[in-house]
């Protein structure tokens, strides 16, 4: 395994001391109209930590993830991510988006661009990387995710597993410090699921900070440093896999796990 996080140029690191957690959520609330989606989320995610968020559907797992890079704005509380406070300030938003990559359930590749262009677009446009450098890096990343031969394909020609690998490479091309993954394997067939999960495991081993919403509990047990059990917009329980699977403290966690395992 070679280094995913190898930079082709010096990353502009924000003034975040090494010991500061990658993500700090303090009493985060979010309403959709009168629906109270997030009800006081408080948690810290350390740098290099891999956290799996799980819970019943409607428990606002995705909402939490989308608040972390401000695809949705939260209504009260503080979110500090990679050293930047998320608020209404535009330059903070830009800074966060540069630090935080996101992978979606349905990939959301750009259908009018080739794999190469999908990966190199943001580095060129946002980080003003030279085209040659961006393309060299795209090829390098595609080699890492195991599909360098697909570089000139269009998304329409890819299978689900291949598309998700491209989406991961696209997110990594921005050299994010935190990677958010919203049910990255839910739209894939069983065979592709294993491949993508293995890839995520490798990323985790390399020290990428990741927050993953997933229902793959086997993967969570193996790869996660910590699990967050969410229900009705609240963190019910949080702890290492041994605790969550072996000795859950909360009745609700126990009930949910007994339903899905």
């Amino acid at each position, binding site marked *: 395994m070679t280094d995913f996080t190898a930079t082709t140029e010096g990353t502009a690191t924000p003034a975040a001391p090494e010991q500061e957690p990658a993500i700090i959520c303090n009493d985060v609330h979010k309403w959709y109209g009168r629906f109270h989606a997030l009800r006081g989320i408080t948690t810290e995610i350390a740098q290099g930590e891999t956290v799996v968020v799980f819970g019943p559907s409607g428990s606002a797992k995705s909402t939490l993830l989308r608040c972390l*890079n401000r695809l949705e704005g939260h209504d009260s509380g503080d979110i500090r991510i990679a050293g930047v406070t998320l608020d209404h300030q535009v330059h903070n938003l830009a800074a966060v*988006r540069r630090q935080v*990559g996101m992978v*979606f359930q349905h990939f*959301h590749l*750009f259908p*009018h661009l080739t794999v190469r262009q999908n990966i190199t*677009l943001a580095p060129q446009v946002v*980080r003003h990387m030279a085209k040659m450098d961006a393309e060299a890096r795209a090829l390098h990343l595609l080699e890492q995710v195991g599909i360098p031969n697909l570089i000139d394909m269009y998304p329409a*020609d890819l299978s689900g597993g291949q598309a998700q690998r491209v989406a991961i490479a696209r997110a990594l091309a921005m050299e994010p410090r935190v990677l958010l993954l919203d049910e990255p394997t839910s739209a894939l067939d069983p065979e592709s699921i294993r491949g993508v999960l293995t890839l995520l495991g490798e990323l985790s081993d390399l020290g990428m900070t990741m927050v993953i919403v997933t229902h793959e509990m086997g993967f969570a047990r193996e790869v996660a440093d910590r699990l967050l059990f969410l229900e009705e917009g609240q963190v019910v329980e949080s702890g290492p896999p041994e605790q969550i699977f072996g000795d859950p403290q909360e009745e609700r966690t126990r009930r949910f796990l007994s339903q899905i395992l």
Partner: protein
Amino acid sequence: MTVAGLPLKVDRTPREALEDAWHWARQRLFSSPGNVVVSALLLAILGWAAFSFARWMFTDADWGVVRANRRLLLVGRFPLGEEWRIWPAVYSIIVLLGWTWGAWGRISRTVAATLVLMGALVLPTLAGWSGLRVVAPALALAVLAYFLAHRLAESPRIRGKARVGSVVGWFMALPLALILLQVRGGVEPALWGGLYLNFVVASGAIIGALPLGIGLALARTSSFRALRVSATVYVEVMRGLPLPVMLTLAWLALRAFLPSWGGLDEVALVYRVTIAFALFTAAFIAEAVRGGLNSIPRGQREAASALGLKWWQLTAYVTMPQAVRNSLPALAGEFIGLFMTTTLIAVVGLTDMLQAARATTEQPAFFGRQKEVLLFVGMLFWVTAFALSRLSARLERALAGKGTRRV
């Protein structure tokens, strides 16, 4: 490959093709006694209609009226000896057509055959021997440009450049045409006419309307209320006005509204009419593009913003290219419609091709020959619209994001 549900080999010998055709006819037209009767009746009616039309076209019709008036139809009252101002534009349009077609795909055999057939029907009468001598090299160049562009587009690296080149070429063609009409004394706009005037007005209106329409579409989908409202008002007003009203306003009333800076109120009627067309068409283009924008899944915007693209970047690189691709059929429809409606400029006293055609029927030598002239003019419009429509279908396919596996 299948046609109408029947399997067909792509490369057939003539004999196989005939067998396929016979097989098709047996299955589709003569499968039962009832079908035999209906098919025979319909075929007879169609055949008779085609025969009588062909007989009229080749025996009764007198195409002399077209031959005698071809200059009037093509350029109106454009002064003699000033043709050099027009030929370069005609050349660049013909060559660009070939280049564009080659860069964005290939021409299908049916379309190529149709264009050649129509050209063979129209060109000898239209251009005459003297004209053919000038047009023939342009056509040869167009064929050459087609093959060259097609060849270049095979390499994915050069394809993009060849395509950008074609688009830039089209946007350069009109300024070139206009400059040529003005330099070295120039020909005053009131003397521009015929088919050339239709082209100038239509392409000027398209070039003006496209950016304006895209801007309006963005404004209508903007989160700023003021922008949204003003764009909506603009679109609704423009769509509600009949075009002749717009044209008459441009003719009579514009100088009453417009300030007179820099002689703005002295602008030639042709320009004012073109601006009116552009303003009018922009409203329809805005709606087509807005439809395209609305059809883009929300995930595209989210993925782009998650990558850090700002609004204008995600618009320019992600949503707008997809929106334009999605609305291409509608846009092509607008452009063809625009080209047809440029015949309305007769309302304000300009002599476009249709008006020139009407004028010929008043010549004593050609009384009662409207049929020929109108049919001929119709054919010219049809060929242009057909080429535009097929070309846009090619663009659509080229932009569909289907890749290397399926070319």
